[in-house]
Protein backbone atom coordinates (compact mmCIF):
# COMPACT_ATOMS: atom_id res chain seq x y z
CA UNK A 1 0.00 0.00 0.00
CA UNK A 2 1.66 3.25 -1.14
CA UNK A 3 2.26 5.76 1.61
CA UNK A 4 2.00 9.50 1.02
CA UNK A 5 3.35 12.00 3.52
CA UNK A 6 1.66 15.37 3.06
CA UNK A 7 3.62 18.31 4.45
CA UNK A 8 1.15 21.20 4.30
CA UNK A 9 0.82 24.84 5.24
CA UNK A 10 -2.90 25.53 4.98
CA UNK A 11 -4.41 22.56 6.79
CA UNK A 12 -8.05 21.85 7.55
CA UNK A 13 -10.20 22.50 4.51
CA UNK A 14 -7.23 22.59 2.16
CA UNK A 15 -5.93 19.16 3.20
CA UNK A 16 -9.41 17.72 2.96
CA UNK A 17 -9.91 19.08 -0.54
CA UNK A 18 -6.52 17.84 -1.75
CA UNK A 19 -6.36 14.49 0.02
CA UNK A 20 -9.94 13.63 -0.91
CA UNK A 21 -8.46 12.71 -4.29
CA UNK A 22 -6.44 9.79 -2.86
CA UNK A 23 -7.47 6.59 -4.63
CA UNK A 24 -8.50 3.62 -2.47
CA UNK A 25 -5.50 1.80 -1.07
CA UNK A 26 -3.34 4.85 -0.40
CA UNK A 27 -2.22 5.60 3.11
CA UNK A 28 -1.95 9.35 3.60
CA UNK A 29 -0.54 11.03 6.69
CA UNK A 30 -0.48 14.80 7.21
CA UNK A 31 1.98 17.02 9.05
CA UNK A 32 2.54 20.74 9.17
CA UNK A 33 5.27 21.65 6.73
CA UNK A 34 6.78 23.86 9.42
CA UNK A 35 7.99 20.99 11.66
CA UNK A 36 11.78 20.73 12.04
CA UNK A 37 13.94 18.93 9.50
CA UNK A 38 14.64 16.22 12.10
CA UNK A 39 10.94 15.64 12.55
CA UNK A 40 10.42 15.62 8.78
CA UNK A 41 13.16 13.00 8.44
CA UNK A 42 11.42 10.90 11.07
CA UNK A 43 7.98 11.25 9.41
CA UNK A 44 9.02 10.42 5.85
CA UNK A 45 11.11 7.33 6.71
CA UNK A 46 8.75 4.84 5.05
CA UNK A 47 7.13 7.18 2.52
CA UNK A 48 6.74 6.29 -1.15
CA UNK A 49 5.67 9.83 -1.99
CA UNK A 50 6.07 13.24 -0.41
CA UNK A 51 3.43 15.83 -1.25
CA UNK A 52 4.59 19.24 -0.10
CA UNK A 53 2.77 22.57 0.08
CA UNK A 54 5.29 25.26 1.06
CA UNK A 55 8.09 24.78 3.61
CA UNK A 56 11.54 23.41 2.76
CA UNK A 57 12.90 20.01 1.86
CA UNK A 58 16.66 19.61 2.37
CA UNK A 59 18.72 16.62 1.18
CA UNK A 60 18.96 15.18 4.70
CA UNK A 61 15.20 14.59 4.77
CA UNK A 62 15.30 12.82 1.40
CA UNK A 63 18.17 10.61 2.60
CA UNK A 64 15.99 9.45 5.48
CA UNK A 65 13.43 8.04 3.02
CA UNK A 66 15.10 5.23 1.09
CA UNK A 67 11.87 4.12 -0.59
CA UNK A 68 10.94 7.58 -1.87
CA UNK A 69 9.68 7.44 -5.46
CA UNK A 70 8.56 11.02 -6.12
CA UNK A 71 8.64 14.39 -4.40
CA UNK A 72 5.50 16.14 -5.59
CA UNK A 73 5.35 19.87 -4.92
CA UNK A 74 1.84 21.29 -4.64
CA UNK A 75 3.23 24.59 -5.93
CA UNK A 76 4.60 26.04 -9.16
CA UNK A 77 7.82 27.20 -7.49
CA UNK A 78 10.47 24.63 -6.66
CA UNK A 79 13.13 26.74 -4.97
CA UNK A 80 12.25 25.10 -1.65
CA UNK A 81 13.66 21.69 -2.59
CA UNK A 82 17.34 20.77 -2.80
CA UNK A 83 17.17 19.64 -6.42
CA UNK A 84 20.88 18.78 -6.53
CA UNK A 85 20.49 16.38 -3.61
CA UNK A 86 17.36 14.89 -5.18
CA UNK A 87 19.21 14.33 -8.46
CA UNK A 88 22.13 12.73 -6.62
CA UNK A 89 19.75 10.39 -4.78
CA UNK A 90 17.86 9.65 -7.99
CA UNK A 91 14.55 10.96 -6.63
CA UNK A 92 12.41 12.73 -9.23
CA UNK A 93 10.78 16.05 -8.26
CA UNK A 94 7.61 17.41 -9.89
CA UNK A 95 5.91 20.77 -9.52
CA UNK A 96 2.37 21.60 -10.70
CA UNK A 97 2.59 24.95 -12.47
CA UNK A 98 0.23 23.62 -15.10
CA UNK A 99 -2.74 23.36 -12.70
CA UNK A 100 -1.88 26.49 -10.73
CA UNK A 101 -1.51 28.69 -13.80
CA UNK A 102 -5.15 29.77 -14.04
CA UNK A 103 -5.32 30.93 -10.45
CA UNK A 104 -2.00 32.77 -10.41
CA UNK A 105 -2.66 34.35 -13.80
CA UNK A 106 -5.98 35.68 -12.61
CA UNK A 107 -4.47 37.14 -9.45
CA UNK A 108 -1.83 38.74 -11.66
CA UNK A 109 -4.39 40.42 -13.94
CA UNK A 110 -6.38 41.46 -10.86
CA UNK A 111 -3.24 43.10 -9.47
CA UNK A 112 -2.48 44.89 -12.76
CA UNK A 113 -5.95 46.44 -12.81
CA UNK A 114 -5.98 47.19 -9.10
CA UNK A 115 -2.58 48.91 -9.19
CA UNK A 116 -3.47 50.98 -12.27
CA UNK A 117 -6.77 51.96 -10.59
CA UNK A 118 -5.16 52.19 -7.15
CA UNK A 119 -8.20 50.30 -5.86
CA UNK A 120 -6.97 49.57 -2.35
CA UNK A 121 -5.84 53.13 -1.73
CA UNK A 122 -8.97 54.64 -3.26
CA UNK A 123 -11.20 52.29 -1.23
CA UNK A 124 -9.32 53.41 1.88
CA UNK A 125 -9.75 57.09 0.99
CA UNK A 126 -13.47 56.69 0.30
CA UNK A 127 -13.87 54.95 3.66
CA UNK A 128 -12.05 57.88 5.27
CA UNK A 129 -14.55 60.33 3.77
CA UNK A 130 -12.74 61.46 0.62
CA UNK A 131 -14.53 61.62 -2.68
CA UNK A 132 -13.42 62.15 -6.26
CA UNK A 133 -10.55 64.60 -5.88
CA UNK A 134 -6.93 65.07 -6.93
CA UNK A 135 -5.97 61.89 -5.08
CA UNK A 136 -8.74 59.50 -6.10
CA UNK A 137 -9.20 60.30 -9.77
CA UNK A 138 -10.01 61.06 -12.48
CA UNK A 139 -6.89 62.00 -14.40
CA UNK A 140 -3.81 59.89 -14.67
CA UNK A 141 -5.31 56.43 -14.46
CA UNK A 142 -4.07 54.53 -17.51
CA UNK A 143 -6.16 51.84 -19.15
CA UNK A 144 -4.82 48.31 -19.36
CA UNK A 145 -6.35 48.07 -22.82
CA UNK A 146 -4.13 50.90 -24.03
CA UNK A 147 -1.03 49.47 -22.35
CA UNK A 148 1.85 47.31 -23.48
CA UNK A 149 2.19 44.34 -21.15
CA UNK A 150 5.60 42.67 -20.85
CA UNK A 151 5.61 39.10 -19.54
CA UNK A 152 8.94 37.95 -18.13
CA UNK A 153 8.84 34.15 -18.41
CA UNK A 154 6.30 32.61 -20.79
CA UNK A 155 5.83 29.20 -19.17
CA UNK A 156 2.45 27.86 -18.04
CA UNK A 157 1.61 30.87 -15.92
CA UNK A 158 2.98 33.54 -18.29
CA UNK A 159 0.98 32.04 -21.16
CA UNK A 160 -2.20 31.97 -19.12
CA UNK A 161 -1.70 35.64 -18.22
CA UNK A 162 -1.45 36.39 -21.95
CA UNK A 163 -4.63 34.41 -22.54
CA UNK A 164 -6.58 36.22 -19.83
CA UNK A 165 -5.50 39.50 -21.44
CA UNK A 166 -6.81 38.58 -24.91
CA UNK A 167 -9.99 40.62 -24.47
CA UNK A 168 -8.10 43.70 -23.33
CA UNK A 169 -6.47 44.38 -26.69
CA UNK A 170 -3.22 45.19 -24.87
CA UNK A 171 0.03 44.89 -26.84
CA UNK A 172 1.81 41.79 -25.52
CA UNK A 173 5.57 41.23 -25.30
CA UNK A 174 7.58 38.53 -23.57
CA UNK A 175 11.13 37.71 -22.60
CA UNK A 176 12.21 34.12 -22.04
CA UNK A 177 15.31 32.01 -22.55
CA UNK A 178 13.05 29.70 -24.58
CA UNK A 179 11.08 30.78 -27.66
CA UNK A 180 7.42 29.70 -27.86
CA UNK A 181 6.47 30.14 -31.52
CA UNK A 182 3.09 28.39 -31.11
CA UNK A 183 2.10 30.58 -28.18
CA UNK A 184 3.29 33.65 -30.09
CA UNK A 185 0.87 32.87 -32.89
CA UNK A 186 -2.04 31.82 -30.69
CA UNK A 187 -1.73 34.74 -28.26
CA UNK A 188 -0.42 37.50 -30.51
CA UNK A 189 2.63 37.99 -28.33
CA UNK A 190 6.13 38.98 -29.46
CA UNK A 191 9.48 37.86 -28.04
CA UNK A 192 12.11 40.51 -27.32
CA UNK A 193 15.27 40.63 -25.20
CA UNK A 194 14.55 41.42 -21.53
CA UNK A 195 16.03 44.94 -21.80
CA UNK A 196 13.64 45.81 -24.60
CA UNK A 197 10.62 44.28 -22.88
CA UNK A 198 11.40 46.40 -19.82
CA UNK A 199 11.87 49.54 -21.92
CA UNK A 200 8.68 49.16 -23.95
CA UNK A 201 6.17 47.93 -21.39
CA UNK A 202 3.68 49.89 -19.32
CA UNK A 203 3.05 46.83 -17.19
CA UNK A 204 5.79 44.27 -16.46
CA UNK A 205 4.79 40.96 -14.88
CA UNK A 206 7.17 38.25 -13.72
CA UNK A 207 6.58 34.53 -14.16
CA UNK A 208 9.95 32.81 -13.83
CA UNK A 209 10.86 30.19 -11.22
CA UNK A 210 13.36 31.18 -8.53
CA UNK A 211 16.62 29.50 -9.50
CA UNK A 212 20.25 30.59 -9.00
CA UNK A 213 20.10 32.30 -12.41
CA UNK A 214 16.87 34.21 -11.80
CA UNK A 215 17.75 35.46 -8.32
CA UNK A 216 17.73 39.30 -8.49
CA UNK A 217 17.20 39.22 -12.24
CA UNK A 218 15.16 42.42 -11.82
CA UNK A 219 17.70 44.66 -10.09
CA UNK A 220 18.70 48.31 -10.05
CA UNK A 221 19.74 48.29 -13.72
CA UNK A 222 16.61 46.52 -14.96
CA UNK A 223 14.31 48.80 -12.94
CA UNK A 224 16.08 51.81 -14.43
CA UNK A 225 15.14 50.54 -17.90
CA UNK A 226 11.43 50.61 -17.07
CA UNK A 227 9.20 53.48 -18.18
CA UNK A 228 8.51 56.21 -15.62
CA UNK A 229 4.78 55.44 -15.67
CA UNK A 230 5.20 51.68 -15.62
CA UNK A 231 3.88 49.17 -13.12
CA UNK A 232 5.64 46.01 -11.90
CA UNK A 233 3.68 42.94 -10.82
CA UNK A 234 5.36 40.02 -9.08
CA UNK A 235 3.40 36.87 -8.27
CA UNK A 236 6.38 34.52 -8.75
CA UNK A 237 8.99 34.57 -5.97
CA UNK A 238 10.23 37.55 -3.99
CA UNK A 239 13.99 37.17 -4.52
CA UNK A 240 13.59 37.37 -8.32
CA UNK A 241 13.29 41.13 -7.73
CA UNK A 242 15.88 43.07 -5.77
CA UNK A 243 13.46 44.47 -3.20
CA UNK A 244 15.70 47.28 -1.94
CA UNK A 245 16.16 48.53 -5.51
CA UNK A 246 12.41 48.27 -6.13
CA UNK A 247 11.67 50.28 -2.99
CA UNK A 248 14.07 53.01 -4.15
CA UNK A 249 12.48 53.14 -7.61
CA UNK A 250 9.02 53.45 -6.03
CA UNK A 251 10.14 56.04 -3.49
CA UNK A 252 11.73 58.16 -6.21
CA UNK A 253 8.64 57.84 -8.39
CA UNK A 254 10.73 56.27 -11.15
CA UNK A 255 7.94 53.75 -11.69
CA UNK A 256 4.23 54.27 -11.06
CA UNK A 257 3.56 51.40 -8.73
CA UNK A 258 3.78 47.70 -7.99
CA UNK A 259 1.55 44.75 -7.21
CA UNK A 260 3.41 42.29 -5.00
CA UNK A 261 2.24 38.91 -3.79
CA UNK A 262 5.74 37.73 -2.88
CA UNK A 263 8.61 39.24 -0.94
CA UNK A 264 12.24 38.56 -0.12
CA UNK A 265 11.18 37.81 3.42
CA UNK A 266 7.73 36.32 4.17
CA UNK A 267 5.70 37.33 6.11
CA UNK A 268 6.68 40.82 5.01
CA UNK A 269 8.94 42.46 7.60
CA UNK A 270 7.21 44.89 9.95
CA UNK A 271 9.63 47.67 9.07
CA UNK A 272 9.33 47.25 5.28
CA UNK A 273 8.70 50.65 3.64
CA UNK A 274 6.36 48.85 1.20
CA UNK A 275 3.73 48.80 3.95
CA UNK A 276 3.47 52.56 3.90
CA UNK A 277 3.34 53.10 0.13
CA UNK A 278 0.09 54.09 -1.55
CA UNK A 279 1.41 53.16 -4.96
CA UNK A 280 1.68 49.46 -4.13
CA UNK A 281 -0.83 46.68 -3.66
CA UNK A 282 0.24 43.87 -1.35
CA UNK A 283 -1.06 40.34 -0.88
CA UNK A 284 0.29 37.59 1.36
CA UNK A 285 1.65 35.08 -1.17
CA UNK A 286 -1.78 33.73 -2.06
CA UNK A 287 -1.85 34.30 -5.83
CA UNK A 288 -2.30 30.55 -6.24
CA UNK A 289 -5.11 30.23 -3.67
CA UNK A 290 -8.74 29.68 -4.50
CA UNK A 291 -11.49 27.36 -3.45
CA UNK A 292 -11.12 25.19 -6.53
CA UNK A 293 -7.33 25.09 -6.81
CA UNK A 294 -6.93 22.56 -4.00
CA UNK A 295 -9.08 20.02 -5.78
CA UNK A 296 -7.08 20.54 -8.97
CA UNK A 297 -3.83 20.20 -7.06
CA UNK A 298 -4.91 17.06 -5.20
CA UNK A 299 -6.09 15.40 -8.39
CA UNK A 300 -2.84 16.25 -10.18
CA UNK A 301 -0.73 14.85 -7.32
CA UNK A 302 -2.52 11.52 -7.03
CA UNK A 303 -2.68 11.12 -10.82
CA UNK A 304 1.09 11.59 -10.83
CA UNK A 305 1.57 9.03 -8.04
CA UNK A 306 -0.56 6.60 -10.03
CA UNK A 307 1.67 7.13 -13.06
CA UNK A 308 4.71 6.23 -10.98
CA UNK A 309 2.91 3.16 -9.58
CA UNK A 310 2.25 2.04 -13.17
CA UNK A 311 5.92 2.53 -14.00
CA UNK A 312 5.34 5.66 -16.12
CA UNK A 313 7.36 8.85 -15.94
CA UNK A 314 5.76 11.49 -13.71
CA UNK A 315 4.50 14.74 -15.28
CA UNK A 316 5.97 18.21 -14.65
CA UNK A 317 9.46 17.09 -13.65
CA UNK A 318 11.82 19.86 -12.60
CA UNK A 319 15.59 19.75 -12.73
CA UNK A 320 18.48 21.70 -11.22
CA UNK A 321 19.54 24.85 -13.14
Amino acid at each position, binding site marked *: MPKVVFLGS*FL*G*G*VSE*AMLGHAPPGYEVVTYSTYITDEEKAERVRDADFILMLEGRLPGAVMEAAPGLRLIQLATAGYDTVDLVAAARLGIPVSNMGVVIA*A*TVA*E*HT*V*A*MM*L*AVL*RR*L*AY*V*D*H*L*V*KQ*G*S*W*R*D*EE*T*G*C*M*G*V*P*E*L*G*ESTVGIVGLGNIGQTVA*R*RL*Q*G*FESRLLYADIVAYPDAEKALGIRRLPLNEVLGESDVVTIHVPLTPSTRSMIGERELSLMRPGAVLVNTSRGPVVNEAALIRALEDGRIRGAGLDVFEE*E*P*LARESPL*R*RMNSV*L*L*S*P*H*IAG*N*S*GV*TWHRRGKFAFDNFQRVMRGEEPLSLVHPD
Partner: protein
Amino acid sequence: MPKVAYITHSSPEVIEVVVGLAPPGYEVVSRHHSAPEEEKVEIARDADFIILHSGRLSEELLRNAVRLRLLQLLSAGYENVDLDLMAELGIPVANVGGANREGVAEMAVALMLAVYRRLVALDAGVRAGRWREGLSTGLDTFELGGKTVGIVGFGRIGQIVARRLQGFDNTILYCDVVAYPEAERELGAERVSLEHLLRESDVVTVHVPLLPENRGLIGKRELSLMRPTAILVNTARGPIIDERALISVLKEGRIRGAGLDVFEQEPINQDNPLLEMENVVLAPHAAGGTYESWPRRAAFAYQNFQRVMEGKEPLSLVQE
Protein backbone atom coordinates in the same frame (compact mmCIF):
# COMPACT_ATOMS: atom_id res chain seq x y z
CA MET B 1 -16.31 81.46 -35.06
CA PRO B 2 -18.17 78.91 -32.88
CA LYS B 3 -18.07 79.61 -29.17
CA VAL B 4 -18.03 76.83 -26.59
CA ALA B 5 -18.82 77.24 -22.90
CA TYR B 6 -17.25 74.40 -20.90
CA ILE B 7 -18.61 73.92 -17.37
CA THR B 8 -17.10 71.17 -15.28
CA HIS B 9 -15.97 69.74 -11.96
CA SER B 10 -12.80 68.44 -13.54
CA SER B 11 -9.21 69.14 -12.52
CA PRO B 12 -7.07 71.75 -14.31
CA GLU B 13 -5.22 68.92 -16.08
CA VAL B 14 -8.43 67.55 -17.58
CA ILE B 15 -9.63 71.04 -18.54
CA GLU B 16 -6.33 71.63 -20.31
CA VAL B 17 -6.76 68.44 -22.35
CA VAL B 18 -10.35 69.26 -23.34
CA VAL B 19 -9.64 72.91 -24.20
CA GLY B 20 -6.41 71.96 -25.96
CA LEU B 21 -8.18 69.63 -28.38
CA ALA B 22 -10.51 72.31 -29.77
CA PRO B 23 -10.20 72.53 -33.58
CA PRO B 24 -8.80 75.76 -35.04
CA GLY B 25 -11.41 78.50 -35.10
CA TYR B 26 -13.21 77.38 -31.93
CA GLU B 27 -13.22 79.62 -28.90
CA VAL B 28 -13.55 77.64 -25.68
CA VAL B 29 -14.15 79.34 -22.35
CA SER B 30 -14.23 77.14 -19.25
CA ARG B 31 -15.61 77.65 -15.77
CA HIS B 32 -15.42 75.32 -12.80
CA HIS B 33 -18.83 74.54 -11.28
CA SER B 34 -17.68 76.37 -8.16
CA ALA B 35 -17.44 79.68 -10.09
CA PRO B 36 -20.15 82.33 -9.36
CA GLU B 37 -23.43 81.63 -11.17
CA GLU B 38 -23.28 84.98 -13.04
CA GLU B 39 -19.99 83.98 -14.66
CA LYS B 40 -21.42 80.70 -15.88
CA VAL B 41 -24.54 82.43 -17.20
CA GLU B 42 -22.33 85.00 -18.89
CA ILE B 43 -20.14 82.52 -20.78
CA ALA B 44 -23.21 80.52 -21.85
CA ARG B 45 -25.08 83.60 -23.08
CA ASP B 46 -23.43 83.76 -26.51
CA ALA B 47 -22.24 80.13 -26.69
CA ASP B 48 -23.08 77.97 -29.70
CA PHE B 49 -22.26 74.86 -27.69
CA ILE B 50 -22.03 73.90 -24.04
CA ILE B 51 -19.78 71.11 -22.80
CA LEU B 52 -20.99 69.88 -19.42
CA HIS B 53 -19.24 67.39 -17.21
CA SER B 54 -21.06 66.33 -14.05
CA GLY B 55 -23.27 68.65 -12.07
CA ARG B 56 -26.35 70.59 -13.20
CA LEU B 57 -26.95 73.76 -15.15
CA SER B 58 -29.48 76.26 -13.81
CA GLU B 59 -32.69 76.95 -15.68
CA GLU B 60 -31.64 80.61 -15.80
CA LEU B 61 -28.40 79.73 -17.55
CA LEU B 62 -30.15 77.57 -20.11
CA ARG B 63 -32.94 80.07 -20.80
CA ASN B 64 -30.34 82.79 -21.36
CA ALA B 65 -28.22 80.68 -23.70
CA VAL B 66 -30.13 81.95 -26.70
CA ARG B 67 -27.64 80.86 -29.37
CA LEU B 68 -27.17 77.35 -27.96
CA ARG B 69 -27.27 74.63 -30.64
CA LEU B 70 -26.22 71.58 -28.59
CA LEU B 71 -25.68 70.64 -24.95
CA GLN B 72 -22.85 68.11 -25.07
CA LEU B 73 -22.18 65.98 -22.00
CA LEU B 74 -18.76 64.42 -21.37
CA SER B 75 -20.37 61.54 -19.46
CA ALA B 76 -22.48 58.56 -20.45
CA GLY B 77 -25.11 59.33 -17.80
CA TYR B 78 -27.51 62.20 -18.35
CA GLU B 79 -29.76 62.13 -15.30
CA ASN B 80 -28.59 65.62 -14.27
CA VAL B 81 -30.15 67.24 -17.33
CA ASP B 82 -33.75 68.44 -17.29
CA LEU B 83 -34.77 66.85 -20.57
CA ASP B 84 -38.26 68.38 -20.46
CA LEU B 85 -36.79 71.87 -20.23
CA MET B 86 -34.35 71.11 -23.05
CA ALA B 87 -37.22 69.86 -25.22
CA GLU B 88 -39.17 73.01 -24.46
CA LEU B 89 -36.15 75.13 -25.43
CA GLY B 90 -35.63 72.99 -28.52
CA ILE B 91 -31.98 72.31 -27.65
CA PRO B 92 -30.67 68.83 -28.33
CA VAL B 93 -28.63 67.00 -25.67
CA ALA B 94 -25.93 64.45 -26.47
CA ASN B 95 -23.96 62.19 -24.18
CA VAL B 96 -20.41 61.15 -24.88
CA GLY B 97 -21.17 58.11 -27.00
CA GLY B 98 -18.65 55.39 -26.34
CA ALA B 99 -15.76 57.59 -25.29
CA ASN B 100 -15.71 56.41 -21.69
CA ARG B 101 -16.74 52.82 -22.33
CA GLU B 102 -13.29 51.26 -22.12
CA GLY B 103 -12.57 52.93 -18.81
CA VAL B 104 -15.88 51.90 -17.27
CA ALA B 105 -15.62 48.36 -18.62
CA GLU B 106 -12.12 47.94 -17.23
CA MET B 107 -13.26 49.21 -13.86
CA ALA B 108 -16.12 46.71 -13.83
CA VAL B 109 -13.67 43.85 -14.48
CA ALA B 110 -11.21 45.31 -11.95
CA LEU B 111 -13.95 45.32 -9.30
CA MET B 112 -15.04 41.75 -10.11
CA LEU B 113 -11.48 40.52 -9.68
CA ALA B 114 -10.79 42.65 -6.61
CA VAL B 115 -13.89 41.33 -4.82
CA TYR B 116 -13.22 37.71 -5.81
CA ARG B 117 -9.53 37.87 -4.92
CA ARG B 118 -10.25 39.95 -1.78
CA LEU B 119 -7.48 42.34 -2.79
CA VAL B 120 -8.42 45.26 -0.59
CA ALA B 121 -8.79 43.25 2.61
CA LEU B 122 -5.59 41.30 1.92
CA ASP B 123 -3.65 44.50 1.26
CA ALA B 124 -4.86 46.00 4.53
CA GLY B 125 -3.95 42.79 6.34
CA VAL B 126 -0.39 42.65 5.01
CA ARG B 127 0.16 46.32 5.88
CA ALA B 128 -1.12 45.79 9.43
CA GLY B 129 1.07 42.75 10.01
CA ARG B 130 -1.82 40.30 9.67
CA TRP B 131 -0.24 38.06 7.04
CA ARG B 132 -2.90 35.71 5.64
CA GLU B 133 -5.22 36.40 8.53
CA GLY B 134 -8.78 35.70 7.46
CA LEU B 135 -7.47 33.23 4.92
CA SER B 136 -6.89 30.54 7.49
CA THR B 137 -8.94 28.02 5.57
CA GLY B 138 -7.23 28.83 2.28
CA LEU B 139 -10.62 28.38 0.62
CA ASP B 140 -11.95 31.92 0.66
CA THR B 141 -10.64 33.48 -2.52
CA PHE B 142 -12.30 32.75 -5.83
CA GLU B 143 -11.60 32.57 -9.55
CA LEU B 144 -13.44 34.51 -12.21
CA GLY B 145 -12.23 32.06 -14.86
CA GLY B 146 -15.02 29.74 -15.99
CA LYS B 147 -17.75 31.51 -14.01
CA THR B 148 -21.08 32.76 -15.35
CA VAL B 149 -21.12 36.53 -15.72
CA GLY B 150 -24.46 38.29 -16.12
CA ILE B 151 -24.41 41.68 -17.82
CA VAL B 152 -27.48 43.81 -17.13
CA GLY B 153 -27.63 46.23 -20.07
CA PHE B 154 -25.75 45.24 -23.23
CA GLY B 155 -25.08 48.64 -24.77
CA ARG B 156 -21.66 50.02 -25.55
CA ILE B 157 -20.22 49.49 -22.08
CA GLY B 158 -21.81 46.11 -21.41
CA GLN B 159 -20.44 44.78 -24.69
CA ILE B 160 -16.90 45.96 -23.90
CA VAL B 161 -17.15 44.18 -20.54
CA ALA B 162 -17.98 41.00 -22.46
CA ARG B 163 -15.01 41.65 -24.74
CA ARG B 164 -12.57 42.17 -21.85
CA LEU B 165 -13.72 38.84 -20.42
CA GLN B 166 -13.00 36.87 -23.60
CA GLY B 167 -9.83 35.37 -22.11
CA PHE B 168 -11.55 34.17 -18.93
CA ASP B 169 -13.61 31.28 -20.37
CA ASN B 170 -16.82 32.63 -18.89
CA THR B 171 -20.41 31.84 -19.75
CA ILE B 172 -21.77 35.28 -20.59
CA LEU B 173 -25.45 36.09 -20.16
CA TYR B 174 -27.07 39.44 -20.78
CA CYS B 175 -30.45 41.03 -20.44
CA ASP B 176 -31.51 44.12 -22.30
CA VAL B 177 -34.70 45.58 -23.74
CA VAL B 178 -32.91 45.34 -27.10
CA ALA B 179 -31.48 42.15 -28.66
CA TYR B 180 -27.95 42.34 -30.09
CA PRO B 181 -27.67 39.26 -32.31
CA GLU B 182 -24.33 40.28 -33.85
CA ALA B 183 -22.66 41.00 -30.53
CA GLU B 184 -24.09 37.72 -29.20
CA ARG B 185 -22.32 35.80 -31.93
CA GLU B 186 -19.08 37.73 -31.73
CA LEU B 187 -18.81 37.69 -27.94
CA GLY B 188 -20.49 34.37 -27.21
CA ALA B 189 -23.18 36.00 -25.09
CA GLU B 190 -26.72 34.73 -24.57
CA ARG B 191 -29.76 36.95 -24.05
CA VAL B 192 -31.97 35.89 -21.14
CA SER B 193 -34.54 37.47 -18.84
CA LEU B 194 -33.33 39.51 -15.87
CA GLU B 195 -34.76 36.89 -13.54
CA HIS B 196 -32.90 34.08 -15.30
CA LEU B 197 -29.68 36.12 -15.33
CA LEU B 198 -29.86 36.81 -11.61
CA ARG B 199 -30.49 33.15 -10.77
CA GLU B 200 -27.72 31.78 -12.98
CA SER B 201 -24.88 34.28 -12.62
CA ASP B 202 -21.88 34.14 -10.30
CA VAL B 203 -21.12 37.76 -11.13
CA VAL B 204 -23.79 40.34 -11.95
CA THR B 205 -22.60 43.63 -13.43
CA VAL B 206 -24.92 46.57 -14.17
CA HIS B 207 -24.60 48.72 -17.31
CA VAL B 208 -27.95 50.41 -17.92
CA PRO B 209 -28.62 54.18 -17.91
CA LEU B 210 -30.57 55.69 -15.04
CA LEU B 211 -33.91 56.09 -16.80
CA PRO B 212 -37.04 56.38 -14.65
CA GLU B 213 -37.89 52.75 -15.43
CA ASN B 214 -34.43 51.60 -14.27
CA ARG B 215 -34.62 53.23 -10.85
CA GLY B 216 -34.62 50.42 -8.29
CA LEU B 217 -34.26 47.86 -11.12
CA ILE B 218 -32.22 45.67 -8.75
CA GLY B 219 -34.38 45.68 -5.63
CA LYS B 220 -35.12 43.35 -2.77
CA ARG B 221 -36.82 40.75 -4.92
CA GLU B 222 -34.08 40.77 -7.57
CA LEU B 223 -31.32 40.50 -4.94
CA SER B 224 -33.14 37.57 -3.39
CA LEU B 225 -32.86 35.71 -6.70
CA MET B 226 -29.05 35.95 -6.70
CA ARG B 227 -26.89 33.05 -5.59
CA PRO B 228 -25.49 33.20 -2.05
CA THR B 229 -22.00 32.95 -3.60
CA ALA B 230 -22.61 35.67 -6.20
CA ILE B 231 -21.14 39.16 -6.32
CA LEU B 232 -22.68 42.35 -7.66
CA VAL B 233 -20.77 45.10 -9.49
CA ASN B 234 -22.20 48.54 -10.19
CA THR B 235 -20.30 51.07 -12.28
CA ALA B 236 -23.49 52.54 -13.81
CA ARG B 237 -25.59 54.71 -11.48
CA GLY B 238 -26.33 54.23 -7.80
CA PRO B 239 -30.13 54.44 -7.82
CA ILE B 240 -30.40 51.50 -10.25
CA ILE B 241 -29.86 49.35 -7.17
CA ASP B 242 -31.96 49.66 -4.04
CA GLU B 243 -29.01 50.37 -1.75
CA ARG B 244 -30.83 49.54 1.49
CA ALA B 245 -31.82 46.16 0.12
CA LEU B 246 -28.23 45.59 -1.05
CA ILE B 247 -26.88 46.44 2.40
CA SER B 248 -29.25 43.92 4.00
CA VAL B 249 -28.28 41.05 1.70
CA LEU B 250 -24.57 41.83 2.17
CA LYS B 251 -24.96 41.97 5.95
CA GLU B 252 -26.89 38.72 6.03
CA GLY B 253 -24.42 37.00 3.71
CA ARG B 254 -27.15 36.34 1.14
CA ILE B 255 -24.65 37.39 -1.52
CA ARG B 256 -20.89 37.19 -1.16
CA GLY B 257 -19.78 40.72 -1.96
CA ALA B 258 -20.01 43.81 -4.09
CA GLY B 259 -17.84 46.22 -6.04
CA LEU B 260 -19.41 49.67 -6.15
CA ASP B 261 -18.29 52.79 -7.97
CA VAL B 262 -21.67 54.52 -7.65
CA PHE B 263 -24.12 55.14 -4.82
CA GLU B 264 -27.60 56.49 -4.18
CA GLN B 265 -26.03 59.53 -2.61
CA GLU B 266 -22.67 60.87 -3.80
CA PRO B 267 -20.33 61.60 -2.14
CA ILE B 268 -21.27 58.59 -0.05
CA ASN B 269 -22.69 59.37 3.38
CA GLN B 270 -20.19 58.76 6.17
CA ASP B 271 -22.71 56.72 8.16
CA ASN B 272 -23.42 54.41 5.20
CA PRO B 273 -22.95 50.82 6.44
CA LEU B 274 -21.18 49.96 3.15
CA LEU B 275 -18.13 51.80 4.51
CA GLU B 276 -17.77 49.21 7.27
CA MET B 277 -18.05 46.10 5.13
CA GLU B 278 -15.07 43.93 4.43
CA ASN B 279 -16.64 42.17 1.45
CA VAL B 280 -17.23 45.40 -0.48
CA VAL B 281 -14.77 47.37 -2.62
CA LEU B 282 -15.64 51.05 -3.01
CA ALA B 283 -14.61 53.70 -5.53
CA PRO B 284 -15.71 57.35 -5.80
CA HIS B 285 -17.64 57.27 -9.10
CA ALA B 286 -14.39 57.33 -11.03
CA ALA B 287 -14.79 54.32 -13.34
CA GLY B 288 -14.72 56.16 -16.63
CA GLY B 289 -12.13 58.73 -15.69
CA THR B 290 -9.03 57.23 -17.19
CA TYR B 291 -6.17 59.13 -18.70
CA GLU B 292 -7.04 57.90 -22.18
CA SER B 293 -10.74 58.72 -21.91
CA TRP B 294 -10.40 62.52 -21.85
CA PRO B 295 -8.94 62.99 -25.32
CA ARG B 296 -11.56 60.53 -26.62
CA ARG B 297 -14.36 62.45 -24.90
CA ALA B 298 -13.14 65.83 -26.11
CA ALA B 299 -12.66 64.56 -29.66
CA PHE B 300 -16.21 63.18 -29.63
CA ALA B 301 -17.61 66.53 -28.45
CA TYR B 302 -15.82 68.58 -31.12
CA GLN B 303 -16.80 66.11 -33.86
CA ASN B 304 -20.39 66.51 -32.76
CA PHE B 305 -20.08 70.30 -32.95
CA GLN B 306 -18.67 69.98 -36.47
CA ARG B 307 -21.68 67.89 -37.44
CA VAL B 308 -24.02 70.59 -36.18
CA MET B 309 -22.00 73.25 -38.03
CA GLU B 310 -22.41 71.20 -41.19
CA GLY B 311 -26.16 70.92 -40.63
CA LYS B 312 -26.08 67.24 -39.67
CA GLU B 313 -27.80 65.69 -36.69
CA PRO B 314 -25.51 65.31 -33.69
CA LEU B 315 -24.59 61.79 -32.57
CA SER B 316 -25.62 60.17 -29.26
CA LEU B 317 -28.71 62.27 -28.65
CA VAL B 318 -30.31 61.31 -25.36
CA GLN B 319 -33.89 62.55 -25.78
CA GLU B 320 -36.58 59.91 -25.94
